[in-house]
């Protein structure tokens, strides 16, 4: 990971949903999305709900398809356009380069919180003891009580699940990190913990791109805010 190197580059990215269950209604989400993110900076996507912020993150991670344009990620063997990459190449890129903290934890039956976080750390090659140590320190920083560490998070509160999710996202340190409202259901102390984690990743040279509705957090972590409304399909059609 290196500071100031371009890690993400979007150009002319377009997304329209076609809702076949509603008679094929077309729902344009964004068009002509273009920006870049460098190592060591945290760029925040701004704008009201429904303007396509989350869709942009998902296209970058590859779980949404882009209808047009390029989404280049700086991987270990050079730039990869995730909008055109075959599934195996997307998985390889996620494994090596792109981390993603979603809004909600997708629980895995029977797997305890600590193991969920540790398995994420193992994905980037930490051995079992190192992965568990890393997981434990993250859960501690995020104030997850130790009595919960070995329980599957299915029955945890929304805030507890979100903290497990954040710990999982930060356990594997990759050069690009996408954050989809990681602080949405957290109290002040935990928001501060997430801000610290983000700052540590920035110092390490990772490129961060996130959505934060909480203004206080946004002001503390953002190097730049990109106003997503300028990518509204009507705006670019004009």
């Amino acid at each position, binding site marked *: 990971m290196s500071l100031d190197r371009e890690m993400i580059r979007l150009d002319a990215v377009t997304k329209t*949903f*076609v*809702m*076949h*269950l509603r008679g094929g209604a077309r729902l344009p989400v964004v068009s002509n999305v273009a920006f870049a993110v460098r190592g060591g900076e945290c760029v925040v996507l701004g704008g009201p709900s429904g303007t396509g912020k989350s869709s942009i993150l*998902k296209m970058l991670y*590859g*779980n*949404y*398809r882009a209808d047009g344009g390029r989404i280049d990620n700086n991987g270990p063997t050079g730039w990869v356009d995730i909008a055109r990459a075959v*599934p*195996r190449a*997307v*998985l*390889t890129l996620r*494994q090596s380069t792109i981390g993603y903290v979603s809004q909600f934890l*997708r629980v*895995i*039956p*029977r*797997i305890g919180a600590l193991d969920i976080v540790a398995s994420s750390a193992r994905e980037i090659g930490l051995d079992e003891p190192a992965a568990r140590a890393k997981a434990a320190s993250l859960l501690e920083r995020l104030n997850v009580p130790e009595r919960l560490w070995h329980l599957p998070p299915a029955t945890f509160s929304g805030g507890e699940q979100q903290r497990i999710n954040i710990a999982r996202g930060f356990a594997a340190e990759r050069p690009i990190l996408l954050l989809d409202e990681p602080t949405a259901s957290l109290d002040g102390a935990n928001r501060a913990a997430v801000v610290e984690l983000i700052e540590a990743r920035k110092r390490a040279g990772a490129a961060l791109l996130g959505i934060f509705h909480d203004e206080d957090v946004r002001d503390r972590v953002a190097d730049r805010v990109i106003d997503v409304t300028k990518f509204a399909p009507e705006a670019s059609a004009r």
Partner: protein
Amino acid sequence: MSVQDDRPLLVAEGLTKHYGPHLGCADVSLDIHEGEVVAVVGESGSGKSTLLGLLSTQLLPSAGSVRYRMRDGEERDLFALGEAERRFLLRTDWGFVHQDARLGLRMGVSAGGNVGERLMATGWRHYGRIRAEAEQWLERVEIARDRIDDRPDTFSGGMRQRLQIAKNMVTRPRLIFMDEPTGGLDVSVQARLLDLIRSFVGDYGLAAVIVTHDLAVARLLSHRIVVMRHGRVIETGLTDQVLDDPREPYTQLLVASILQA
């Protein structure tokens, strides 16, 4: 996902199967790489089980081919293999987990015997070693050692499925086929089985083709999804992409029909 070789392990091209005038599946092409889990989803009658039967050479295609990279690295056309060679492949380098355990197990033979059989097929002769290996695999699938001499018809549904998995895993296959492996099980039993399959796939770098109508199972276990309808593949891609951003009308309907707990 571990990648030992860039070439696919299995390559199916133009697989088609007619049952008389009836279409089983039509023109299906599919690559599977080492360590890759592919879920084949669709409703009853979509052709997903026919596809599994063709890929695993248990059915003969009306047209099309399946090539497989053997352990020695040589790629072979599976329908050109002799019957003995194909059976050997199925009993060593491949596994098959059936929804109905009675198809995958010999119900009148002890649990240890079911597992040991596959070892004997690969040349194991020493009784003590076969038994010790069988014991280890039973333990790994969470079946108590003292059940080794019991017959699977005394086991619960979940135990039978786990025994099928142990039986398949004992020869360290590279590719495993599963036909609705969690079908008909209680949800708590299902969770335990899914957890086991997930850890084996990860720990042993297994490739797998899993036929399921359950999109949650597909999401949990697979890297890629193949959606079938009326015998044809209508959509394919990364699992989270197909489920989060389905493109085809039928896939959108399937995804919209999932019950949320």
